[in-house]
């Protein structure tokens, strides 16, 4: 039938144009990076079985973790507030309560041993630069260093919440939230912005945020972007592969490899969607209903056309 032939011609030209301006053009413009499924294959596997009790002594004692890091679940408070910490270290060191569940064990071990290497920011800390990563590496407490690190990792895993209790928000705050604000979720680098009764209290808070951001900007070279709309501006695949290894997509970036597990990366992405694509479930629900309605509309319009045109042919 002639009309179907014409429809086929129109459809083919439309699809060819679509293919050229969307999938094809984007493949030329953007490097495609395959996910490595957060395997961190470049890092050595853990060979020792850790002991959480010994790990606790190391974390609190010889490992000196708690000199800089708070561990709120273990009752260890931060020694300095977030702003002062950022002014001292460049960025506020993370609370260690949940790092055992958010970060990959292999990554944690490598991080304790050599932070700049595990974080893939060695290009920032070359001998010529004269700079050192603010987190001191762990040189061992006198015994087998690999055993000691395995113990510390075991301790961190033992105090962390269970995987199923880790919310998307917690994963985001631990993994991203000390560098990235998220305005649409009321999140600043020093925590959630409270509701203030008095304008001057709010201003005082804002000044703290600005002081923190200034220190962070000095440390990173530029203020890390607000992530509110990243789910729309970058998309899931880009975010996931970028978090896995920022150097693959943006060579030389100051953003460290985050080291999250695959499950935590999913949680982080879910939180980004909760900020920038809040209506995604409603959209699918409404979408289905509208499609059903419109198909019925098309059927009725076809029947109407037939009833009118039977007199015309």
């Amino acid at each position, binding site marked *: 039938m002639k009309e179907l032939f014409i429809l086929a011609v129109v459809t083919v030209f439309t699809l060819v144009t679509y293919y*050229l301006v969307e999938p094809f053009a984007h493949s030329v*413009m953007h490097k495609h990076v395959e996910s490595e499924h957060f395997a961190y294959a470049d890092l050595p596997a853990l060979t020792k079985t850790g002991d959480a009790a010994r790990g606790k002594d190391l974390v609190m004692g010889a490992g000196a973790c708690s000199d800089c890091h708070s561990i709120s679940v273990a009752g260890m408070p931060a020694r300095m507030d977030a702003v002062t910490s950022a002014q001292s270290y460049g960025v506020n060191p993370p609370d260690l309560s949940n790092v055992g569940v958010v970060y990959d064990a292999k990554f944690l071990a490598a991080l304790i041993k050599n932070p700049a290497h595990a974080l893939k920011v060695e290009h920032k800390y070359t001998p010529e630069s004269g700079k050192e990563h603010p987190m001191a590496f762990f040189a061992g407490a006198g015994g087998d260093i690999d055993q000691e690190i395995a113990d510390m990792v075991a301790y961190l895993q033992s105090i962390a919440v269970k995987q199923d209790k880790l919310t998307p928000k917690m994963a985001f705050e631990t993994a991203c939230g000390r560098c990235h604000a998220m305005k649409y979720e009321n999140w600043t680098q020093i925590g959630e912005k409270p509701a203030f009764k008095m304008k001057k209290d709010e201003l005082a808070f804002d000044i703290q945020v600005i002081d923190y951001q200034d220190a962070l900007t000095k440390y990173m070279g530029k203020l890390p972007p607000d992530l509110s*709309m990243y789910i729309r501006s970058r998309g899931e695949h880009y975010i996931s592969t970028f978090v896995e290894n920022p150097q693959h997509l943006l060579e030389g970036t100051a953003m460290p490899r985050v080291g999250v597990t695959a499950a935590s990366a999913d949680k982080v992405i879910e939180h980004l969607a909760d900020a920038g694509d809040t209506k995604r479930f409603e959209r699918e629900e*409404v979408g289905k209903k*509208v499609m059903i309605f419109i198909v019925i*509309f098309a059927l009725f319009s076809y029947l109407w056309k037939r009833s009118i045109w039977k007199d015309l042919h």
Partner: protein
Amino acid sequence: MAHFTKATSVHDWLNQRLGIDTVRRVMATEYWIPKNINFLWAMGMVLAITFALLLVSGIFLLMYYQPNVNTAFDSVNYTIMREVDFGWLWRHVHGVAASVVFLVIYIHMFTGIYYGSYKKGRELIWISGMLLFVTFSAEAFSGYMLPWGQMSYWAGMVITNLFSLGGLHADGLVEWIRGDYVPAQAFLNRFFMLHVLLLPLAIMGVIGLHFGALRIPHVNNQDGEELDFEAEAAKYKAGDKKHSKVIAFANDFMSKDMFVVGIFLIFFFYLVFFHYDFAMDPVNFDPADGLKTPEHIYPEWYFLWSYEILRPFSTNVGLMAFGFAQVIFFLLPFLDRSPNAVPASRRGLFFIWFWAMLIDMIVLTSMGKVPPIEPYGSIGFYAALTFIGLWIALPIITMLEKKA
């Protein structure tokens, strides 16, 4: 003064004052359309419906959008997308319709070119249609500025820069258009005004002209047959609907239109709910930042072909080529020297010209988006030359055309 009698019904009361029966007869039941048409003839109705979708969704968006450089981005991405009930729906309908309307416009245009529907008294239909294309383009561009994302800002920068007219260095003109040295508050405000008032008014006016221009020469048909509309209408009115070559606008033509609209809306709402990304560029979900140029700046897909006619040449030559591309379609009825108003398939060389033009514009569209690296730079360059060459060849090949 007319003589009024006591009304027997609401209908009669209105009829005495507004002549609604006459309006109905003239606009619908005795507005004659050829019977020999295919679904491409419904694109006008599809466009009218899409325009209505744009208008209605735009009205809802207008209730929450804030034309201020500090709040515009958040008013769209936070207020409309998160806070307002179904704000996301209006935005996606508006964004997708703005893109799809151009697809339908292009189909409508190429239908007109294929069937020669710009000749023999139909020149003004074509010209008013091209005016609509230009006003829709301006409307799309001004609307694209409003979310004040990275692509809004930088596309605004690039396009307004064109008005410096290359070697003429008319920087004063660019500043006058922007109201500032760079796109800023004055720029956003005036494009907001253009988008929500002046251009929609112009569009509605030109739609009126477009419909009016259709009235006397009538709608063309699939075989370019010249119909005696009065004789055929008389046949129809006498009840011989089967042998009459015309049908009434309503309900005959309308029922077919609505079926096509139904199919179109299935496609449209599929895009709105499940495949909207193509119409809403990811780059524009980063807020405008005058200190950070995006790696790739490109217009929306429907402007790519003319962008690619601008891009491969040096500044001045490129601007001239671009200017040529903007006006040349207007001249189609006069550049086509053949008296034959029949489908391209019966017009020899013109048939080749038609498909060459269509394919060349798709090549230009595709090359306009990718960065001008080889081989794409060269393909774009030769496609732009082909575009200009085809238009130069048009009067010649149509003069050689035999009378069909």
